[in-house]
């Protein structure tokens, strides 16, 4: 009798249980084409990431963006203003800093630093005023100065700029570090 009862319960459970139709199983979480940054497009203007990728002076920055999985984000619609430290700027960091930051367990910290180099908005040079404070993507403020046509951010010198499809890249000679949390 107990067996029969069990069988009955089992039948009920099975009968109206999951009726999953088998569909072509595929990993729908990963983009098939490898994401926005991999879209083949030789016609459009380069976006801010492509500008960095195509610059021999920014290989360290690009590696950091890849480690932080930020390449696709900066291929997005934006608009972005990116302050891009050169390889030499990264070299000025205390020995071992970069190695530490690019360790998987420090991804959040690396992201915060990279976000401190990104402002969401298209800040062309004519819109920048001396002493202007901007709130970066990391939510920390940075200060822009413009004196005698020379542009600096937190004291780092702007060496040049490039217009991308989704924003502007300012090349700088130092890595920006967010102010210490109080």
């Amino acid at each position, binding site marked *: 009798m107990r067996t029969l009862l069990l069988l009955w319960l089992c039948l009920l459970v099975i009968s109206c249980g999951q009726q999953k139709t088998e569909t072509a199983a595929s990993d*729908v979480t990963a983009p098939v084409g490898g994401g926005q940054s991999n879209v083949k497009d030789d016609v459009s203007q380069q976006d801010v990431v492509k500008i960095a990728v195509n610059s021999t002076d920014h290989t360290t920055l690009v590696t950091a963006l890849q480690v932080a999985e930020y390449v696709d984000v900066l291929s997005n619609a*934006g608009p972005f203003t990116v302050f891009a430290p050169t390889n030499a700027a990264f070299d000025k960091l205390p020995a071992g800093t970069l190695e530490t930051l690019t360790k998987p367990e420090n991804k959040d910290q690396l992201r915060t630093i990279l976000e401190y180099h990104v402002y969401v908005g298209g800040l062309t040079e004519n819109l920048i005023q001396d002493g202007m404070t901007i709130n970066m993507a990391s939510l920390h403020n940075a200060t822009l100065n413009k004196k005698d046509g020379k542009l600096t951010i937190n004291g780092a010198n702007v060496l040049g700029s490039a217009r991308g*499809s989704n924003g502007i890249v300012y090349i700088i000679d130092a890595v920006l570090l967010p102010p210490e949390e109080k």
Partner: protein
Amino acid sequence: MDKKTILRSLLVVATLVGITVLQMCKPQAPASVSGSDAAVKAYVPPGQYDEFYNLVSGGFSGQMSVYGLPSGRLFRVIPVFSEDPTTGYGYSEETKAMLNTSHGYVPWDDLHHPAVSTTNGEHDGRWVFGNANNTPRVARIDLKTFRTSEIIELPNSGGNHSSPFITENTEYVVAGTRFSVPVGDKTDVAISTFKENFKGYISFISVDPKDGKMNIAFQLKTPGVSFDLARAGKGPSHGWFFFSCYNTEQAYTLLEVNASQKDKDFIMAVNWKKAEEYLAQGKGEKVKARYARNRYDESTHTATSEMLTEVLQLDPAVLKDIIYFIPCPKSPHGCDTDPSGEYIVGSGKLAALIPVFSFTKIQQAIANKDFEGEFAGIPVIKYESALHGEVKKPGLGPLHTEFDANGNAYTSFFVSSEIVKWNVKSLEVLDRVPTYYSIGHLCVPGGPTRKPHGKYVIAYNKITKDRYLPTGPELTQSAQIYDITGEKMKLILDFPTIGEPHYAEAIPASLIMPQSTKIFKIEENNHPYVAKGEGQAKVERKGNEVHVYMTAIRSHLTPDNIEGVRVGDEVYFHVTNLEQDWDVPHGFAIKGAANAELLIMPGETATLKWKPLSVGVYPFYCTDFCSALHQEMQGYIRISPAGSNVPLKYSTGKTDDTAAGAGR
């Protein structure tokens, strides 16, 4: 019985019930969905491309829609013959000219048949043509931009149903009138003088192989009948065209009854190479006409309209050997040539058989003058002499036929609501599937070409009772995809369509995708009011016209503060999208505008005309969610009273009220 026994019996019964429940809970597939692999066959995983583009007529919406196959996903609705507030087509100053006709601006039409351009009888992926059924016109849509590039009106046509059909190398796009009408100088005539005064016309529109530009090369004057559909010959029959004709009774009232009197109407065979010979001999007659031709120029981003005043005509009743009639049972609708070009399938929409004619036999009959008589001065070939054979009892109400690459034909049956597969040579019926319900056209990818791509047949249905959630008195029209890779056709997906779908074509994505336009180059923008950078943005007054040369880029409009504009002014916002990045359009809208928005592609300039009617400060903004700061992409224009002295000024990013600190 003791308690235990009763309980045990109850459990036995319950177990049986349980088993029944198990059966009942199985998914209840419709009878026609045989096998559980239907979903897999139509499934395109997120992030993957479809295999085919499906270009579907929008019927009374006047537009054409683009779906993916086999997923049935809708990608785009292309504005063609109807205004489209979404894109500003027909509303922007640049596109208004596209809808010009000899009757003035016509904001709507009824698009029935797409035709994809071919080279050597195979899809080449350059253009798709479409017909305006009501105010007779043919449109050419560029498959690089998916935009309407050109619209040409057809003079002397009463209604452009039998259109557009293309010759093997897209030499011509051909259009036949549905309604014969009186033409020329004698148009104010009694309707009852139909036989005497009403004429049908077939227009041969030449297509420039270089850029697709259309021109009416010539028209054939034909007896007053109704042309329904047509196909060009191909391969051996290249140089010929075949039209279905109904109302050979020449009825002018209650056609429902009066045009169905005869047991046979006609297929009209046209030797257009012969027509070209007569033209070369100067036998064409230039006749006065009035018709518009509208072209969109990608360099100025502007359409221009011209009114043409004459057309070249040939009269086949006088110039022999251009046209012949072949009897065809009961008001033929579809008239389709198979991929080999040898067989012509006529579908009498009230018949219970399908006649298949042989091109070789038609040629022999013409050579032997195997005629049964004349109709309005045109020889009528004997039915049996032209006939390859009949498909007997295929179904009721055959409409249209498409072909696969294996010698099979697929015919839609409106009355019996089914698709029937049959072999073109043997005429044997091989398979039949129901459609839900009342199928009109059907489409096999590449079905009208010399090299069908096959794989699917898609049914376009008029009625969908019980197929979709109801939406009031009118339900969605739909398409249904059947897998035809096996011997039996298998229904794999239903999907709703816009407007009312008539004909559709499907073309491999690989023929279109690689050349799809991404942006318009800003340096190649020759619009007279372009601002190629923010430095060129300005506002100019010319009398009561105010021209705003505005730019849009993520995420601001320049200028975004405008003053010195007055009630009584006409303001033209010429907005240039400065983006040079794929898939980043900007939009533009202003409060109170009596037209629509603008949707401006990267590198393009578009113009919205706005007449401020009252004093105030009016906001304008970007309507396309372009960026993280899209909601900030806005501006103000101040409208002062008529006669006001407020000076004209404009700016972006300039803050005057530093004391109050606004904008800081």
